[in-house]
């Protein structure tokens, strides 16, 4: 190797335009061209900013009751009107973004982490471990998910935190099965065999080779799952099993205002619109990510 050493200095010059293109950057380029996906990302970013700066943006606090201004229709002073306690609906929706995004994000984070880990183990080791884990997933999927969530909350007691846990639990098998099937194909790739031939440990192969190559579908599924989780959280709150008054959760707001739907439709319309827009945003974003990260799945 000594004969090669003097060459070292020669190769340093690098063309400025020759940029190293990572697979992620490549995906981003594809994503940016997708208009619907960009709209989805815009909506999601909008709600995230709303949640972060709720304290600055919201014209009123969440619990400022003005009984003299009950059930007012949208006007210049209350853009989205007021509810039966005289609270500003717009302000409550802005604060509600915090709750919904928080629940959606952390519930999905939890189920993605647990589900992916189980899926990795099941797919990589196969045999009995796989059978046991897969059958547990099957059992969980045999229940309608909202029913399972209701059962979990019934056991833990109704609260927003428990609703989050319930949503996390019911989404575990979705991630688990997704990751397992992905691992089954990645495991057959030659670079996994090559990694073993270099003397790598199973745990290192799983986390360094199999997981990174399974990340794209996890991200896609994760984004889409946030949409469902937000919807499920709203449903649980609507049923009185999630957020408790006076938390400004959108589903809860729907439930509380539903008796005024004729008198004051704005109290129902705007929280519903907020739910719909967020879910739409995450779905568009998720579809866009899928197209960008997994070109094979494109129709």
């Amino acid at each position, binding site marked *: 190797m000594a004969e*090669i050493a003097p060459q070292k200095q020669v*190769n340093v010059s690098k063309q400025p335009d020759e940029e190293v293109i990572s697979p992620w950057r490549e995906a981003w380029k594809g994503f940016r061209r997708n208009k619907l996906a960009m709209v989805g990302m815009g909506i999601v970013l909008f709600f995230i900013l709303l949640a972060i700066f709720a304290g600055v943006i919201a014209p009123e606090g969440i619990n400022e009751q003005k009984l003299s201004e009950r059930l007012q229709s949208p006007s210049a002073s209350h853009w989205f009107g007021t509810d039966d306690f005289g609270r500003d609906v717009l302000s409550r929706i802005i604060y509600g973004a915090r709750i919904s995004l928080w629940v959606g994000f952390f519930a999905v984070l939890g189920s993605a982490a647990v589900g992916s880990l189980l899926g990795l183990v099941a797919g990589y080791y196969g045999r009995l471990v796989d059978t046991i884990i897969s059958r547990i997933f099957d059992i969980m999927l045999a229940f309608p998910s909202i029913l399972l969530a209701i059962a979990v909350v019934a056991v833990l007691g109704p609260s927003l935190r428990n609703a989050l846990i319930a949503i996390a639990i019911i989404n575990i098998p979705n991630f688990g099965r997704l990751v397992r099937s992905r691992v089954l194909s990645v495991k057959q*790739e*030659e670079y996994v065999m*090559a990694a*073993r*031939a*270099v003397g*790598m440990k199973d745990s290192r192969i799983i986390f360094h080779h199999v997981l990174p190559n399974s990340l794209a579908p996890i991200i896609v599924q994760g984004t889409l799952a946030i949409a469902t989780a937000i919807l499920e959280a709203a449903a649980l709150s609507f049923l009185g099993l999630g957020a408790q008054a006076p938390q400004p959760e959108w589903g809860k707001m729907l439930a509380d205002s539903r008796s005024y739907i004729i008198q004051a439709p704005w109290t129902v319309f705007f929280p519903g619109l907020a739910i719909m827009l967020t879910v739409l945003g995450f779905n568009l974003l998720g579809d866009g990510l899928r197209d960008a990260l997994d070109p094979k799945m494109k129709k």
Partner: protein
Amino acid sequence: MEQPVLNVSKLETHFFTDDGEIPAVDSVDFHINKGEVLGIVGESGSGKSVTSLSIMQLIQAPGKVVGGEITYKGENLLTKSEKEMRKIRGNEIGMIFQEPMTSLNPVFRIGNQLIEGIRIHKKWSKKKSWEHAISILKLVGLPRAEELMNEYPHQLSGGMRQRVMIAMAMACDPEVLIADEPTTALDVTIQAQILELMKKLNRETNTSIILITHDLGVVAEICDRIVVMYSGKIVEQGKTSDIFQQPKHPYTIGLIESVPDVRVRKDRLYSIPGNVPKPGSIQKGCHFAPRCSFAFDKCFEEDPVLLETGSNQQARCWLHEDEKKAAVLERVNS
């Protein structure tokens, strides 16, 4: 005689499938000396790759090594634990695979993949491993080694990736390099370059190389000795020059016959009639007998043993049990 680096004896690797137990490798014996290049030749399904994976202990279910011994530096690899094997893989015995396009992880930079093995075995710092990896990339003849370290596999051509794979296998300076069809997926000019590189590495680092291939041209190019496998068994082994000049087994003769020769214009290339039998489908007699034009009664009755046919040359064929029959073969041969 010199002590071989790696000695395989009576190796049996079976696959336990729904159709029963299939002997993919059936009582295989061979050895490789220090600094030698050994070619293992055979058609698809002859058990070449399973043999190499057995040495590395990388056989996956439903396959299992059920018998024999693989002795490396005086120790039987088959009795080693998975943990002990991990220290040997990549460090003592390196391996390169057939498909350079898929043998590199697409989401990691070349450099990160190269230093993984070095860091595991040599326990060097990241910086030192990185520098060592660059020197190995230069050793395998890759230009712009420093920049390549930061690139992703998809930016490299097939030939370059195979060089990276060789670099990865050579990174810890192994005693033995197993190359499983390293040139099959590459085009001819690149094939020659890769073979040239392997020959150079063999000369310069004195690494023993086991080259697994179905391509006799590749074998003739760089191997010192050849093992010919058929249906999980060794049918002939000997020095490359001896085997090319005096093939003793009808199968080897057929293989050599079917190599195209540009100097002779032929309308039709010779091919051995029939296919490699499904392992385990032949219960009695020589596995090659149904395709063999020299086969006689005994071939269908009794499985031949490896018979000495010359100095350091053996063939698994009944023809060589009998002088007269062997003479017929010689005549046809010449």
